């Protein structure tokens, strides 16, 4: 077989295995002795290194493995961080609203209100830094209490959690007053 064909087989083997492959196995697959195989692989290693390639072959105790070149890491990170487009699902929004208005609140209480297990939602909200642990309830099992974070308040432009439900009440009142004023104006005209 031509050298090119043999190298192609070695490339395919190292690629698909992903992990390190013993020299003896590679040699058996291409039906050549280990010495020849080793020479072939070292040739490939040199070429991969010289050429502008994203991958290379490394030797590890008579085994070989294909891997990415270190210089590629910063680009790989860009790929790795892309899929994590954070967004608030309905479940998360629901859980967040309960915590915002009922804090400090235990997971059990949240579950009672929602009627479903809420571990995942609570964990996600903690991960998103929208809620955090406030301490423990002085009750059997000493369950964790959750509340919204400062970041959460800041994002809504609210000073403290006391303002949360009130703001809404005030808003409603405000709307009412406005509406009444308008009516009054109309009557005056």
């Amino acid at each position: 077989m031509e050298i090119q064909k043999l190298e192609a087989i070695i490339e395919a083997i190292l690629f698909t295995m992903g992990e390190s492959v013993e020299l003896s196995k590679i040699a058996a697959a291409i039906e050549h002795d280990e010495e020849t195989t080793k020479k072939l692989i070292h040739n490939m290693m040199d070429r991969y290194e010289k050429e502008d390639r994203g991958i290379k072959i490394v030797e590890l105790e008579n085994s070989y493995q294909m891997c990415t070149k270190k210089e590629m890491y910063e680009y790989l990170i860009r790929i790795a961080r892309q899929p994590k487009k954070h967004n608030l699902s309905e479940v998360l929004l629901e859980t967040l609203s309960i915590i915002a208005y009922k804090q400090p609140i235990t997971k059990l209480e949240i579950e009672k209100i929602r009627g479903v297990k809420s571990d995942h939602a609570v964990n996600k909200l903690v991960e998103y830094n929208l809620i955090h642990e406030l301490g423990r309830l002085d009750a059997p099992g000493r369950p964790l209490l959750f509340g919204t974070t400062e970041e959460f308040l800041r994002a809504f432009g609210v000073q403290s959690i006391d303002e949360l439900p009130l703001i809404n009440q005030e808003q409603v009142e405000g709307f009412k007053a406005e509406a009444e004023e308008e009516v009054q104006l109309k009557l005056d005209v």
Partner: protein
Amino acid sequence: MGIPVKLQAFEGPLDLLLHLIDKNKVNIYDIPIVEITRQYLDYIQQMEKEDLNIMSEFLVMAATLIDIKSKMLLPREVNEEGDETDPRQELVEKLIEYKMYKYMAYELKDRQIDAEKVLFKEPTIPKEIEEYSEPVNVEELLDGLSLARLHSIFKSIIRKQENKIDPIRSRFGKIEKEEVSLSEKIEYIKVFATENNKFSFRKLLEEQCSKMEVIVTFLAILELMKTGLIAISQEKIFDDILIITT
């Protein structure tokens, strides 16, 4: 024309029909309906009648064939354009479509044989990259979410929760608990009656904390009246009822 001794398994009525058309070497556009129908019926007679569901699908096709057969005997129907319609047409179209997909299935099979020879690789994402996680941007996360919206979500959850509580069943729950036993209540009133010779029914009720207790107390009074331990008197309607120990 005979049926092959060894019955082939057919995927469905269309499959069988195509087989018969092929076997008879007839044109799909010009199915000799009488002959094909006969063979079709012969075939389903030999079918194992174990699965009625499968059987029924073959029978529907048989009915369709017989329907076409009878229509072939009648003068041809004419459509709006004045052309004669072939009663077989609908079936032919169905058969052609089905045949096409059967053909595609073979094509796919061929492709699959080739495609199976291609090997992929498991992700081997270096640890440094896997462990990297983008810090969460809270502002961006909450973008478009207003306090009013959050509040309305909360309100709707509370509403939902309230709706979940069945008013009738939730009361059943309290009865089941039987916190107040009638016999205990009777004992209680007996003691009360010996301590107070004459007492107000309303006052007695006021001492009861739950609706359930009120009801049981009332029942206890009735029971004690029946046994003659107490007597009651009321001057005018809606007046307080006086209980007198006899």
